[in-house]
């Protein structure tokens, strides 16, 4: 879990949607990096741009309607944003694996599990049929699917949600990618399965040494599963830190408020859970100041006028003029 050698590094990424007069910046100046065997959590509420950021950084976000306006995304020494579609496609599935949110809809209902796994391998390798079958069997067994020979002949609708998510993980990892993108992989699963899938992903990460970009809105999952975390708000990273530091001493008022509104076992049930007043400003209505200022209890006149930039502290970085003091 060393972060000194990032395998994936995104710098100053800016993304907009639409064209002409309707063109709106939705993600602005986002930077992050993932090391070998490391998990970076990207958290934020719905619509803050976390999925768009991650999908655009590996070229999977369809364009149009989205446009990458600037920045770079380097996998090893390749800038993904400068690659031609054909070259990008060769990386998808081989060096970059993706696990999607909903296992119910991410498998093609008209093909058997075996056919879909073969597809994943066939796109990037020239194995013989026998070699391919052994590799598929080994992978299925590795992700904890019992009776793999039988599963291979089954259709997605014959499998439970947990099994399907395991199949999707097998598909994403079968070519041994360096970077795994997990876009809310556990949101559609119940809590028990969620824990199992997370444990599986952690084991596979330690074994195969890939970096994981983990997109989620669940802070509990982040605390369990991630090494570092980047908190996004209205298209920007407002705070990034090691997980223990972030949970112990959040510096940005947004992170602070998010953590305060998370229910805990030891919280007093008679006191209502704190909420964050107001709404996320829609893209296009974000002024020159800090986009959280309107909802921030610590806001000062300066917050409305100039947007703070991300400054590195001792445990991480935050973008705030008046950070929450370390307790």
């Amino acid at each position, binding site marked *: 879990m060393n972060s000194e050698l990032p395998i994936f590094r995104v710098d100053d990424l800016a993304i907009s949607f639409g064209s002409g007069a309707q063109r709106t910046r939705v993600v602005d100046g986002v930077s992050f990096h993932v090391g070998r065997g490391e998990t970076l959590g990207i958290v934020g509420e719905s619509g803050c741009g976390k999925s768009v950021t991650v999908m655009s950084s590996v070229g*999977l976000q369809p364009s*149009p309607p989205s446009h990458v306006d600037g920045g770079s995304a380097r996998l090893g020494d390749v800038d993904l944003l400068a690659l031609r579609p054909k070259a990008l*496609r*060769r*990386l*998808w*599935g*081989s060096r*970059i*694996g*993706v696990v*999607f*949110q*909903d296992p119910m*809809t*991410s*498998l*093609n*209902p*008209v*093909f*058997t599990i075996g056919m879909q796994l073969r*597809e*994943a391998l066939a*796109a*990037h390798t020239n194995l013989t049929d026998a070699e391919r079958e052994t590799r598929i069997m080994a992978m299925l067994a590795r992700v904890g699917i019992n009776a793999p020979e039988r599963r291979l002949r089954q*259709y997605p*609708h*014959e499998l439970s949600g947990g099994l399907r998510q395991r199949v*999707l993980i097998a*598909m*994403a990892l079968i070519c041994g990618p360096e970077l795994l993108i997990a876009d809310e992989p556990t949101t559609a699963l119940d809590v028990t399965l969620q824990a199992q899938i997370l444990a599986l992903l952690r084991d596979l990460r330690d074994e195969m040494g890939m970096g994981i970009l983990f997109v989620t809105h669940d802070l509990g999952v982040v605390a369990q599963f991630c090494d570092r975390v980047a908190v996004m708000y209205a298209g920007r990273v407002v705070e990034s830190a090691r997980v223990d530091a972030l949970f112990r001493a959040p510096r940005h008022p947004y992170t602070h408020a998010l953590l305060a509104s998370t229910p805990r076992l030891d919280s007093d049930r008679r006191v209502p859970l704190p909420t964050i007043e107001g709404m996320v400003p829609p893209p296009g209505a974000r002024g020159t100041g800090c986009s959280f200022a309107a909802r921030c209890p610590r806001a000062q006149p300066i917050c409305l006028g100039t947007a703070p930039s991300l400054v590195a502290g001792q445990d991480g970085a935050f973008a705030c003029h008046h950070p929450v003091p370390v307790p």
Partner: protein
Amino acid sequence: MRTLLADRLAILALCFIATIVAGAAGAHWFAPFPPEETFFDGLTLEGAPLPPGEKYWFGTDLLGRDLFSRVLFGAQTSLVIGLVANGVSLLIGTLVGIVAGYVRGWVGTVLMRFTDLMMAFPALLLAIALAALFTPSLWIVAMVIAMVNWVQVARVVYSLTVTLSEREFVEAVRSLGATRTRILFRHVLPHLLPAIIVYGTLGIATTVLLEATLSFLGIGVQPPTPSWGNIIFENQSYFSTAPWLVFIPGAAIVLLAVSFNILGDTMRVALDPTLRGRTS
């Protein structure tokens, strides 16, 4: 029980189609008379066509020709029109629709606006214009019908492809590095097959009737070559006195269309893996 019934119907439909195909292919051997020969005893003394009887099984038409022979030879024309014209229009429509639906952008816009243009253009007028350019023959007529009919298929396939390409499994295959062609023809196309099959089987009746219309206007299959459509049109003025002249080829068209429909429906069910598991 329901599947058994459906299977029996499907077998019946298949038998009917096979009979028609065999009859058309072997018309030279099966037909009791040449289809274009007019018989002196084929009309009554007043000049009216004969009803179905011992010598002329399906009766005779207004010129005293044997209707049974004409229906057999007409099957050749109608099958070619129904299968070839329909097949070509399905092929064009599917290709245009799937490409426009998946690629979208300016390619999709150009393709679909062209489709709209073709749709807005009166089909018959277009067919007449096309038929005027080329000398009418069976194959030309089939192509003309295909050119007119692909538009609806393209529309249906387009809208289905648009919804399908938003589905997550398409995104998932894309993230595995599959090429565009592969995604379209291996992952999206199977989902379109049910709609295409249903449309194709419905189209058989439409194309056979369109051919009849063209024949009626004199730009279809040229008389005296029979087709089911032009038999009906030639004889329609005798409908009240000699109903069999319209009824028999009409029934042939309806039965053929229904048979293809049943067959298509059975195929659609057989192709669906979620339904396959239930029956066994």
